[in-house]
């Protein structure tokens, strides 16, 4: 009670009534989350406005519904402006007073956002009370230029063997995760967040998961999973669920980028996941059509490419003078029937630095993650790979690609020559070793050791279908009996001559023991 009284007393003492002249407009028409406003002659694009119902109400009536209702100016027209209503559009009525706020759409950002679930306006939606901190950041800003950037050279480990070995991601990179619905796109993203727990605290990226147009139950499940794994300690969730206005779904990724930049500019690393940009594109199409902007291909507006390029360009690795922080982006795109040549997928593929393509067929065959090695690439990640991983993963991609070519002949295995049979078995074994369950990311030193074993034939004594089981036993064995070998790989980030010798010794013992 005491503190509340003090707080109110302080507010009253500090209170200064509005003295200046404010610019106002009047709602001419409203519908579908868009308001046409008369006046506001000096308003600028993406400026925030406040819909003020209190103007023609008594104080008592106004206090009943005192929560502010904001709008975002998206069209400047000859005789007024059009704004997207950021909230309950049913509260806006014709003749309502609209006040200019004189600032571009901004959200409050601070370190205390970590562990919280917020909406695209930075308002908490997790019932844990207000977020401390009052620093506002515009959600739209120009990306860093060439001079401000440094090359991507620090790995961002996803904890997924197939990705870290074949499609490595660097801090500051933009790597697209693309595939049909239900093939494990979100799983890869969440596993990547979970894996950051394996990173040392000082270099652990702050993760921002942006849920766009998702079912609230799905987002709640993800938050619970992250909480259970202790990953919310370094994660922020921005949610614009399917039930939220289209404007929220359009803004959510930009809010995520603004939060990520807050950490990047402190010299920290950030990882932002946009799940997914197809839904953002649909929301933006809806807004654009309601704003009467001319439709283009698939009814998307002409600036749909710019929408995604300006968002993804904000991922960066800053140079030392700017603190050396980074923001890695993992956008997700959902395809229809595996069609990567559709409008939005091709746009985003061309913007990003590579893509992880997930195939429904592989998923249905039980391959987890269902990555199509052939068309998944990382354009900059290899320079960020650790020496240890580079050494062990060199041949995997080629070997797997050759295996996929020969896979069709598997049904005629009895008629095949020994060499081909051996190659197919080796490919099958490698495929089994690369399989990985949900929510079980591996630390990079364990991945390096396991892949080393696979490429050097230590699983050859196991039948191909048993390789996955053997790989799990090897993991246990390495932890139990591996001595310092994992620790050495983790610390040195490479497999030197001495380490290789020790590792080979451990692996030989493992093979011997398994044969008994």
């Amino acid at each position: 009670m005491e503190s509340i009284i003090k707080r109110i007393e302080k507010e009253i003492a500090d209170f200064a009534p509005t003295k200046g002249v404010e610019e106002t407009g009047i709602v001419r028409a409203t519908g579908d989350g868009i308001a046409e406003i008369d006046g506001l002659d000096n308003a600028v694009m993406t400026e925030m406005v406040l819909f003020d119902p209190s103007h023609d109400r008594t104080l008592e009536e106004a206090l009943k519904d005192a929560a502010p209702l904001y709008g975002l100016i998206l069209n400047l027209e000859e005789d007024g402006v059009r704004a997207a209503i950021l909230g309950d559009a049913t509260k806006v009525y014709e003749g309502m007073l609209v006040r200019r706020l004189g600032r571009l759409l901004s959200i409050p950002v601070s370190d205390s956002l970590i562990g919280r679930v917020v909406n695209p306006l930075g308002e908490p939606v997790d019932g844990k009370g207000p977020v401390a901190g009052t620093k506002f950041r515009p959600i739209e800003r120009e990306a860093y230029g060439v001079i401000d950037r440094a090359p991507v050279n620090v790995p961002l480990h996803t904890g997924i063997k197939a990705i870290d070995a074949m499609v490595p991601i660097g801090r500051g990179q933009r790597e697209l995760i693309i595939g049909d619905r239900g093939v494990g796109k979100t799983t890869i993203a969440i596993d990547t967040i979970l894996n950051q727990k394996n990173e040392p605290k000082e270099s652990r990226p702050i993760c921002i998961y942006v849920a766009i147009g998702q079912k609230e139950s799905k987002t709640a499940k993800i938050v619970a999973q992250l909480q259970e794994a202790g990953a919310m300690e370094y994660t922020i969730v921005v949610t614009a669920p399917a039930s939220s206005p289209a404007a929220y779904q359009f803004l959510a990724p930009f809010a995520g980028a603004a939060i990520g930049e807050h950490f990047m500019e402190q010299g920290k690393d950030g990882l932002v996941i946009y799940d997914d940009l197809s839904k953002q594109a649909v929301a933006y199409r809806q807004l654009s059509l309601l704003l009467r902007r001319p439709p283009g291909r698939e009814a998307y507006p002409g600036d749909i490419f710019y929408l995604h390029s300006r968002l993804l360009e904000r991922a960066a690795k800053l140079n030392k003078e700017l603190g050396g922080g980074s923001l890695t982006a993992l956008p997700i795109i959902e395809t229809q029937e595996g069609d990567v040549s559709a409008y939005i997928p091709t746009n985003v593929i061309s913007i990003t630095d590579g893509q992880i393509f997930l195939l429904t067929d592989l998923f249905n065959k039980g391959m987890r993650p269902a990555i199509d090695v052939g068309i998944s690439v990382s354009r900059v990640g290899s320079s960020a790979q650790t020496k240890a991983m580079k050494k062990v993963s060199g041949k995997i991609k080629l070997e797997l690609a050759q295996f996929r070519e020969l896979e069709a002949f598997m049904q005629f295995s009895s008629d095949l020559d020994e060499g081909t049979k051996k190659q197919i078995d080796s490919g099958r074994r490698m495929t089994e070793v690369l399989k990985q369950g949900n929510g079980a990311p591996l630390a990079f030193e364990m991945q390096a050791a396991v892949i080393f074993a696979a490429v050097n034939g230590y699983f050859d004594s196991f039948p191909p279908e048993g390789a996955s089981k053997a790989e799990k036993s090897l993991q246990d064995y390495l932890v139990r009996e591996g001595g310092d070998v994992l620790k050495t790989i983790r610390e040195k980030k490479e497999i030197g001559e001495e380490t290789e010798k020790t590792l080979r010794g451990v692996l030989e013992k493992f093979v011997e023991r398994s044969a008994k």
Partner: protein
Amino acid sequence: MKASTYAKAIERLIASGESEAKIGDNLIAQLKSRGRLKLLSGILSELTLMKARGTTVAPRVEVAHDKDAVQALTEARMLGIDAKEAHVHHALISGWRAQNKGLLVDRSGKRALLDLYRNVTKA
């Protein structure tokens, strides 16, 4: 040209002091010569809209109590809002507010209390 463009031109001419009868005659003659008399109904509705907008944005001063009227009108005039009279609006609780062509000065007790309430409850 669109009906709205004609309407805006008419508004500008009236503001410059041109005779309304002359503007009307010239407009009809011009539309006739171009065979665009059909635009008349559109121009009419645009002009009606402009007139309504002019009423909404006309200078207006509201006071909570009659006794504040003189002071409110003077202060509003100093801020560029020149209204002829002040209307009493009890919901303002105290003080006054003035509006003119998209500008608002709100020095009412209601606004101050509402701002205070929002400040206290937002954090």
